[in-house]
């Protein structure tokens, strides 16, 4: 270990150059990994924000961001099932609410959620704090973190949705995802009045189980009580259902994977060049060590250790820079970019992997170093 370390710090300028080279390749991978996670996270943020143990939806609903309304009578059935503390309706729409930017009058599609102000369904504190104000008909809460071209961030107090006047009575912080640019929240009555032409109906039933009761058992009971057209999920199950859909259906998965592969290959090449140059430069020293009697195996280990240290020298600053970049890009692009343990470990594994593999390939030189040739 000491030899590898001493080799590393012997030439500071060289260390800086190799750390920078590997660091940028790692940065490329970290960006891809971060974006991939933000993609999935943004799709799941609302589901995670539902205040329920069990969720009821149409059996035909294939992803969260689509309307499959069902009759509210199903919630009455649910409430009668023993063990159910409450079953509250959530009205939701992604493609029929057109919001007018109060500043420039331009019209954009927004996501809309409606619920009974006396029966909140979300865990979001800022939404719940304002729900009393939604009792007045024609009032909405707006997403202050929506894409800026929607103009939800200004101080406007009224605008139009679907050509009808609405009053803006408060805001919350949610952010866009890959389907919707922004969200409005309103009471169930306002929702139905603004939704023109489409059949009204509840999209999701948010069920709370009596404290102490097993959600899985209540889930079974609900399945028996409800018609075949209804499906019952636990909250983790619904999250998994959505995650599977996003992973399988969107092209996002392969795109991010390819971006990570590109970073990996670039890193391998940079690392190969570094190792090759280092070894070639120090060939006389290695040959001498061999001549004195050091075994080839020991020298190979030294080279690999040095490669690992180079990897870390690039990885650590890359992670630190990524944390900063995640914050900046996350704010600008309104994406939930966060450094997580998973990203840290995956990137570390990939970095060490790419440096060790390329070093192992470059190290053939050391193995064949003939002391006599060098002198």
């Amino acid at each position: 270990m000491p030899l590898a370390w001493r080799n590393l710090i012997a030439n500071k300028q060289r260390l800086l150059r190799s750390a920078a080279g590997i660091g940028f390749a790692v940065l490329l991978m970290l960006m891809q990994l971060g974006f991939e996670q933000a993609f999935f996270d943004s799709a799941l943020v609302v589901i995670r924000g539902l205040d329920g143990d069990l969720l009821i939806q149409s059996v035909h609903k294939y992803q969260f961001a689509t309307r499959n309304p069902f009759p509210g009578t199903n919630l009455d059935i649910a409430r009668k099932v023993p063990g159910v503390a409450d079953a509250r309706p959530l009205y939701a729409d992604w493609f029929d609410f057109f919001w007018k930017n109060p500043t420039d009058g331009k019209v954009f599609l927004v996501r809309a959620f409606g619920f009974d102000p006396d029966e909140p369904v979300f865990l979001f504190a800022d939404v719940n704090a304002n729900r009393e104000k939604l009792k007045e008909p024609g009032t909405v809460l707006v997403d202050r973190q929506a894409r800026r071209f929607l103009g939800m961030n200004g101080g406007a107090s009224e605008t139009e949705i679907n050509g009808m006047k609405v009053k803006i009575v408060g805001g919350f912080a949610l952010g866009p995802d890959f389907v919707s640019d922004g969200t409005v929240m309103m009471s169930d009555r306002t929702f139905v009045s603004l939704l023109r032409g489409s059949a009204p109906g509840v999209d999701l039933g948010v069920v709370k189980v009596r404290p102490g009761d097993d959600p899985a058992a209540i889930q079974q009971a609900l399945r028996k009580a409800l018609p075949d057209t209804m499906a019952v999920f636990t909250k983790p199950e619904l999250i998994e259902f959505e995650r599977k859909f996003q992973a399988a259906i969107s092209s996002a998965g392969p795109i991010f994977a390819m971006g990570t592969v590109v970073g990996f290959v670039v890193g391998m090449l940079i690392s190969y060049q570094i190792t090759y140059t280092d070894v070639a430069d120090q060939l006389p020293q290695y040959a001498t060590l061999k001549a004195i009697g050091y075994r080839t195996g020991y020298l190979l280990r030294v080279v690999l250790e040095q490669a690992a240290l180079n990897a870390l020298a690039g990885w650590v600053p890359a992670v630190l820079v990524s944390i900063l970049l995640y914050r900046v890009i996350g704010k600008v692009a309104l994406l939930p970019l966060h450094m997580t343990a998973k990203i840290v470990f995956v990137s570390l594994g990939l970095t060490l992997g790419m440096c060790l593999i390329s070093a192992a390939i470059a190290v053939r030189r050391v193995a064949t170093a003939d002391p006599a040739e060098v002198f």
Partner: protein
Amino acid sequence: MIGLFHFRPTVPLAWRILTDDKRRTGLALVGIFMAILLVFVELGFFYAVPRGGLLLYDNMRFDLLLASNEYEYQAQPGAFPLSQLERVRSSTDVAEATPIYFGFTKWKSGEGDLWPDIFVIGFDPANHIFIPDSINRQSAVLERADTVLVDSATRPMFGPLDTGRIVEIGDRKVTIGGQYVLGTGFMGLGVALASTANFARLFPQRGSAIANLGAIRLKAGVDPDRAAGDLQKLAGSGTRIFTRQELDAHETAYWTTRTSVGIIFGSGLLISLVVGIMIVYQIVSTQVGRQLSQFATLKAIGYPDRSLAGTVSAMSLLIVIAGFVPALAAAWGLYSLIRQETLLPVTMSELRVLAVFAAALAMAVVSALLSVGALRRADPADVF
């Protein structure tokens, strides 16, 4: 005279320096190759998204497109009354003006009882508005009542797409008359084509009186830009007319600035450019560093800095150009692979090749000039 003498050996000298240590130069070439390939790949991804957004338009025949002035992008085109398109048709510049209808509805015959959303495009099959042969060959099929063609790239979630299968779309039972090859792009997970009459049956609340787009074909010799202005006045308020270029620019701007994808791929592109510059600089400065004693000797003999700078620049340009050609070839192959694996329309264009080549040359020259700074400081006395 002396100036001439000093410039002549520049390139041959650079060449001999590079070919002297083939292994090191080879390694340098590999580095340049990777740097340029990386830039090509990231550029490919970055422009693939708007290209995917333009998939439908790229496969349609029109010179101008009439749309509502609330047109956002292809999936949110707004709508306008058919009468406005009819006014446009009356112009002597216009050979054809045909309405296009867009609608989303539930496909109630999906796998596992799921009802995915299907994107339906309504049009008059006789007008041969679409380019793919697979569509035009089946015009007669489209004219049959309650029959649609389904895009072959429609996801498996929709169930089998066999000809003759009866499916429920919206509130209607519809027969799959056949498949066509175009691609779903970002229109959705499944796309179907229907004649105007069938579209109206699927979307009875709309009927055919409200269109989403008007595809306008001009008579031969008519200037699209001039005609766009005239037809705009004819069509009336609430609409706008796009030329092909305007449409391309509009959709590209939407995808790169309004969605997250622009930021995501843009940041990848930016990083790849930085990595590319770093690699080129590192390689060039290494090459110069290895030759430091030789260059110092030349300086001592009396070669002017300018001539040495010329040699370094020549070395830099030679390496970069030599690395560019295989990188371009590899990028071409990689693009094809990416198209297959991710269904993203990653395509090469002459503009891109020229732009990357110019950028590579610029990087070469800048790296050379920076390395030359080290040369200038090389004191012959220090070296010996």
